[in-house]
């Protein structure tokens, strides 16, 4: 089980939760597990079957694009951070 941080912009799609547990041996599998349980997330995270370019995913503080992307292995108890771009400054 990995912990997944849900950013405020995506919380409406997961019933307001800030963190969720998800199963999977890779980052891609963890996200797929989430999307299966909360289908509206798919449109927010994926674009044409790939991780959308305006969404960053971090494992151990590193952007998975600098690791092995969605194939990056996830150990039990690790935290995945989902981070879509956020513009507010008002």
């Amino acid at each position: 089980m990995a912990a997944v941080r849900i950013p405020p912009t995506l919380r409406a799609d997961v019933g307001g939760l800030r963190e969720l547990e998800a199963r999977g041996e890779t980052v891609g599998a963890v996200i797929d597990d989430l999307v299966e349980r909360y289908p509206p997330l798919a449109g927010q995270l994926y674009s044409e079957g790939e991780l959308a370019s305006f969404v960053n995913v971090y494992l151990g503080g590193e952007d998975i694009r600098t690791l092995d992307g969605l194939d990056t292995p996830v150990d039990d108890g690790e935290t995945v951070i989902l981070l879509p771009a956020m513009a507010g400054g008002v």
Partner: protein
Amino acid sequence: MASYRELLAQVKEEIDEISSTAAQDLLTSSDAPLFVDVREPDEWQEGHIPGAVYATRGRLEQQIEGLVPDKSRPLVVYCSGGSRSAFAAKSLAELGYEDVVNLAGGFTDWKRNGFEVTMPRVLSSEQRARYSRHLLIPEVGEEGQQRLLDARVLLVGAGGLGSPASLYLAAAGVGTLGIVDADVVDESNLQRQIIHSTDSLGEPKVLSAKRTIEALNPDVRVLPYEERLTSENIDRILGEGWDVIVDGADNFPTRYLVNDASVWHGIPVVHGSIFRFEGQATVFSPGNGPCYRCLFPQPPPPELAPSCAEGGVLGVLPGIIGSLQANETLKLILDRGETLAGRLLLFDALGTTLDEVNVRRDPYCPVCGDSPTITEYVDYVEFCNAPVGRS
């Protein structure tokens, strides 16, 4: 009990000395020592050896480790005639400084030889009082305070983030603050935009901010830009010369515009963004790390971008993130400490947690990468019905 003369003679036996002429030769060599001036403030103000650091004899032991953390660095200590600095040299050796020499004949002899002297710029007595808590910090001190007074910072947005950032920068004595905002003060702003007040309802935000800042600190010159940042005016505004940009915009088009312009103008950006209970802050320093497009290459499509007006924000959150932006800005100006360049700070006000993720420069970045594909401004569709540059 030894007399002063005996004590001085004894100390001089324990330390090494260097003549003005030999010290002057060293000053122009590749491994020049650092000069440490231990005279009184009025003596320092009448001129000092170029590049010298300054700590009065009375505060030397207290301040030297902040001024010179590297104890192996060669030091030449001086006062006016070489006596006070003899005691200082001994004390520095006792503190573990490995290579300390006393300037024989002191500054008087240096001047008599006609060697170069730097005249320090002097703070007025009002400034000395106002910035006294900065002057006490070795990392700031008089030189740092002068840097702040000389600095020019451009704030994009006089809203939630721009309010605390500009107030703290003004209080710190940052000499010139440019503020870009096309909006007027609205009642719904006052829950968090603390630079404005009930009295300024309906007034352009840049003018309300200017009034508040000038009341806070008359040393600060505010340059108001009552306009929206666009691809048309950004080169003109950035071209006026800024040391740091504080990005407190509320929309993606402005953020990308500010990013691309800052890369092309070579100006660091202190980035902050907020949404409900969460905030982010980082520093984008062109040439020394990633830019905003390395973090997010392009904005989300408008239908997926969070709606600013509906999103809401806890009033104190911009206070926290905007203050972090002021902190980063001050460090960039002072060239002290570690900035957030390469690190994105994630603050969650509900859980009171602070996380950090790494942000790396992307060699394929369309703007700051090795082969840029974006070479002119992109006018993105405006989101949230917020015109560019409003906040």
